[in-house]
């Protein structure tokens, strides 16, 4: 069974703190993604990685960075958390081969910034 695991389900941080969200997939997928999910806005792409050490900005990268040192792991970093980054963060992975790019999602990490 495919598995995308996010390290923390719930986090509470203070404004200005550095936050790490980690994601691990066991499907040997090349592509990995970080989205944030907000009510009424759906999912918005923050960053994605199409291979190890490769990364691309998504639609809302400001205030975020990412790291992909190993194929199975993709980390999202908030250098200095702000209250407007309170959200649900979803990690996803996808096989680069195949006819259609279905995404496999983790359970999500709900971050509250006080």
């Amino acid at each position, binding site marked *: 069974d495919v598995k995308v695991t996010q390290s923390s389900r719930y986090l509470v941080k203070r404004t200005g703190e550095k936050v790490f969200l980690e994601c691990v997939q066991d499907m040997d997928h090349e592509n990995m993604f970080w989205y944030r999910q907000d009510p009424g806005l*759906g999912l918005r792409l923050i960053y994605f990685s199409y291979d190890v050490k490769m990364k691309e900005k998504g639609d809302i990268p400001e205030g975020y960075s990412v790291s992909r040192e190993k194929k199975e792991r993709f980390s999202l970093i908030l250098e200095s958390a702000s209250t407007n980054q309170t959200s649900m963060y979803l990690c996803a992975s996808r096989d680069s081969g195949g006819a259609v*790019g279905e995404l496999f999602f983790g359970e999500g990490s709900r971050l509250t910034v006080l």
Partner: protein
Amino acid sequence: AQSVSQHNHHVILSEAASLELGCNYSYGGTVNLFWYVQYPGQHLQLLLKYFSGDPLVKGIKGFEAEFIKSKFSFNLRKPSVQWSDTAEYFCAVNESGGFKTIFGAGTRLFVKA
């Protein structure tokens, strides 16, 4: 830029009622289309997908969707909903061969028993 529009943000139905959730996208090229579902407390999962061939696609749990290219639409349907279909539904699109999948705002469906 690509965008996805879902017509209804909240839908309330009684069991056995028919369901149709609207989805329109803006992109002129070849696309892959998806519906994802998020049941309460669970992760997002694929409901169905279209990439080529028969424009009427069938997914899990009796759902189907029809791709109408001329209308840039990919509406989700189910003839008779159940209480267990209560969930949030997301329409999504990506450019064929592209990396980015763009999601709509989602539709929250509540089915009354």
